[in-house]
């Protein structure tokens, strides 16, 4: 059933520098999480993607959001109502 998604998350984790992945639906409910991706933050991340999309209401594709902190970079993008976030360590 959701095996393909689980595999996809695991594959993403195998990329260099990736320390966490999150995947959430339109309602901000978590569909899957790996590594540093905290399930509790799914809502916040979906809301961020949604808000960013509002900046470009005409644009057909959603923007890529990058959040940088001292030791981490979070990349967020949504596609067809599904928001994906990738946590990369910046070191």
């Amino acid at each position, binding site marked *: *059933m*959701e095996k*393909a*998604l689980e*595999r*996809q*998350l695991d594959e*993403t984790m195998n*990329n260099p520098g990736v320390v966490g*992945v999150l*995947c959430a639906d339109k309602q901000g409910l978590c*569909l899957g999480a790996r590594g540093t991706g905290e399930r509790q933050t799914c809502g916040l991340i979906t809301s961020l993607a949604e808000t960013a999309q509002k900046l470009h209401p005409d644009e057909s594709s959603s923007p*890529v959001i*990058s959040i*940088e*902190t*001292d030791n981490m*970079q979070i*990349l*967020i*993008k*949504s*596609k*067809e*109502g*599904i*928001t*994906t976030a*990738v946590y*990369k360590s910046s070191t």
Partner: protein
Amino acid sequence: MGNCCCPSDDKGFQEQEPDERSSLIGNHPGSSNSPRLVPRSERTPGASRSDSFPSPQNHASQRGDEQSALNRILHQTASNVIDVAAIDARSMEQHEYLDKARQYSSKLTMLCNKTPIPSRPHSLPSGVGNPHAILSAPPLSQADIQFITQVADRTAQTLKEIKVKHKEDLVVPFGVP
């Protein structure tokens, strides 16, 4: 009708009150492990357990013990049953409700005078220690953009493949011959 017995595999329920039960089983030689036949209608998770209790020919004091243990089992079995019909049976009297609400209100005022209210959560994270370094760094690399776009595309794709697999019947008849 509307009732459904839950299986006794919920560890949380069983392990909370193992006390009297376990000791009684151990103390009485009269208890046997071979279960006596229980009519189907009586067979519930708790009732099958009562088979291992001694027969009522024991001492009077033990009888009281036994009775309370049996009562406890009955109670627990009853509370383990999901009874949909009984759900809306309980309702509160209007004045009782108001009394309670008033009582809570005054207690809360008393309590909040004593304990401090936590400071409001910050809407923004503390971010970076050295904004200069981040701001002067090159913008998001094309590789990163491509990477996250790819991942997002693939996730959306795999999500489409999620389907409910029919494994077992949704309605299971209980005890129907």
